[in-house]
């Protein structure tokens, strides 16, 4: 059996929320931790697209960036092709930075405004010293054209400020694929774009994934988009996964009360559609002082006293779908490994 492309095991990322000279010198005051990611485990198969969804502040972006090792995880492991890349020696050996790339959310800020398109797309080759100068030029031109910026000559001398949002996002994609990575993190790749061009960017990503066999981790707050793009999705709440499963299944038949609320709150185009508005109490709690037991319990419409006692594990709810909710304890006693 081949190992999955990426295997995340009990990943945690806690940020210090306050620290200054005096705290460091004299230990004045307690250091508080924001538990952005607090024990997340999932797998992404070769060539699969996996989606992470959740409200802002749920830790999905931090989780994604910890996968790419743009954050040093606090604990837990991330295995890439079966090797633990939290170990710097492993990262060096496999040349991790050529294997995993990122496409960022905001195309207006993700390209250095002082770089021309050509230089921006070429930089990864320069950094890793790949090919001769001439070879690099050819690769850059090919890549720029492969993301739909035709002909490359028309775009490569431009500064990003001269391009539209959609074109910029294509440039970012070109930079991400020029090293032929096997994994891409797409962090809200279309959320800043106008609806009419969004589809073309998503199509492009879809096509590249097919052609190059890349595994993609999509991060988005937009369930409709994830449903459209992903094979499987995971729903995050306050630093933990609460539900994982095949995309269509999770959204059409959510199991966890939080997923139900999310799906129920997402507006639909059909004006006749009468959705049952999910009633969630209050706001998301402070990720510094988490509630005891199930972290969703204080807002959960179905919470019982039992929920505040202990954090529930992931339960199988059928067909490759799992939910972190005590409701499924009765139906199915057997728990999945935590």
């Amino acid at each position: 059996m081949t190992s999955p492309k990426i295997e995340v095991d009990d990943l945690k990322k806690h940020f210090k929320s306050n620290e200054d000279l005096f705290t460091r010198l004299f230990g004045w005051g307690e250091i508080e931790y924001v538990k952005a990611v607090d024990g997340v485990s999932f797998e992404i198969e070769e060539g699969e697209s996996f989606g992470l969804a959740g409200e802002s502040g749920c830790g999905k972006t931090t989780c994604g960036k910890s996968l790419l090792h743009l954050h040093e995880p606090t604990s837990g492991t991330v295995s890439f092709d079966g090797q633990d890349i939290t170990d710097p020696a492993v990262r060096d050996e496999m040349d991790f930075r050529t294997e995993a790339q990122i496409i960022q959310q905001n195309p207006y800020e993700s390209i250095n405004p002082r770089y021309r398109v050509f230089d921006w797309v070429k930089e990864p080759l320069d950094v890793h010293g790949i090919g001769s100068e001439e070879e690099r030029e050819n690769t850059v031109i090919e890549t720029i054209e492969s993301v739909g910026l035709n002909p490359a000559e028309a775009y490569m001398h431009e500064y990003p400020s001269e391009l539209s949002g959609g074109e910029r996002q294509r440039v970012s994609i070109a930079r991400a694929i020029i090293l032929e990575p096997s994994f891409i993190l797409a962090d809200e790749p279309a959320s800043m774009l106008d609806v009419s061009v969004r589809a073309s960017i998503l199509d492009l990503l879809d096509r590249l994934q097919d052609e190059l066999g890349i595994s993609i981790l999509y991060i988005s707050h937009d369930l409709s988009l994830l449903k459209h793009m992903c094979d499987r999705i995971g729903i995050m709440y306050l630093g933990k996964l609460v539900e994982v499963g095949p995309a269509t299944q999770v959204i059409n038949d959510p199991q966890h009360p939080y997923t139900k609320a999310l799906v129920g709150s997402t507006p639909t185009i059909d004006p006749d559609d009468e959705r049952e508005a999910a009633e969630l109490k209050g706001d998301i709690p402070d990720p510094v002082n988490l509630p005891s037991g199930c972290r969703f319990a204080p807002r959960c419409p179905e919470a019982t006293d039992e929920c505040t006692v202990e954090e529930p594990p992931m339960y199988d709810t059928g067909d490759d779908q799992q939910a972190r909710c005590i409701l499924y304890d009765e139906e199915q006693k057997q728990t999945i490994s935590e």
Partner: protein
Amino acid sequence: MSVKDHLPANVESKLTSSRALSQIKDGVSTAYELYRSDRLGQFGIVVLAAFVFIAVFAPILAPYSPGARHRRDDGSLARLDAPSTDHLLGTTHHGQDVFSQLIVSARVSVFVGFLAAFIAVFIGTNIGLISAYYGGWIDDILMRIVDIAYGLPFLPFVIVLVFIFGANIVNIMLVIAAILWRDSARVVRSEVLSQKQRPYVESARAIGASDFRILYRHVFPNVLPLTVLYMAFAVAYAIMYEASIAFLGFGDPNVYSWGRMMYQAYTHGAIREAWWWVLPAGVCIMLLVSSVFFIGRTLEEITNPEIRH
């Protein structure tokens, strides 16, 4: 308004040299934009260019040696003579030609102004870059040093140091730089802190760029306009502080400077009678400094588009 609008439509750029070439072009077009954008900036550039010209060609332009004592036809020392065709701006108490002193003095102001400012901004920018980029302990310590530098009253500090190390023009310049760096350090730091948050930096990390590359190839070019702006301010302050030091009598006794001219005029009581000895140096300081400030203001408008309408 983008940079591209100022370039000829058909720019031939060889791929390999495109980067260096384009940066030169950017520089040129920024300068052009600066010149075009408002009259204050134009005034500033013209005046500054004039002073630089005077400073460079001072020995040719000055009609007399600045220290030479002139005598009247009757052989007496030409003490405090009013302006005439011989002496365009009259003479000093010692019978020296004011106009020649004025011309020669431009060298000191321009030299001290630019060099001190360059050193100050060079130090400040690097401290700001490193402090903000690495954060943590390094940031704490560097920023406390900046705080302390802000706690030092400028002129007294400079005077004490100049006195200790000796009043020559290089020391004066170094001492001014030793304190002026704090402004650019603080401003660059806060700008880098904001640049650091931008996704392009993360993108550079994701492709495996080194810290050095990120700092100097990615962040620095984006901080550069601010650095240039603070350079302009530093030039202006350096010129004024050099003049103030000289006016207080702590200047280099071996070189002529506008501050020293005013010091001598003031201590000889010339402000009561010999306006021609007092006014020109002050006007020159004011003109030179304000030209730099005008350029700075124009730069500010260009580099900070948010504060345009």
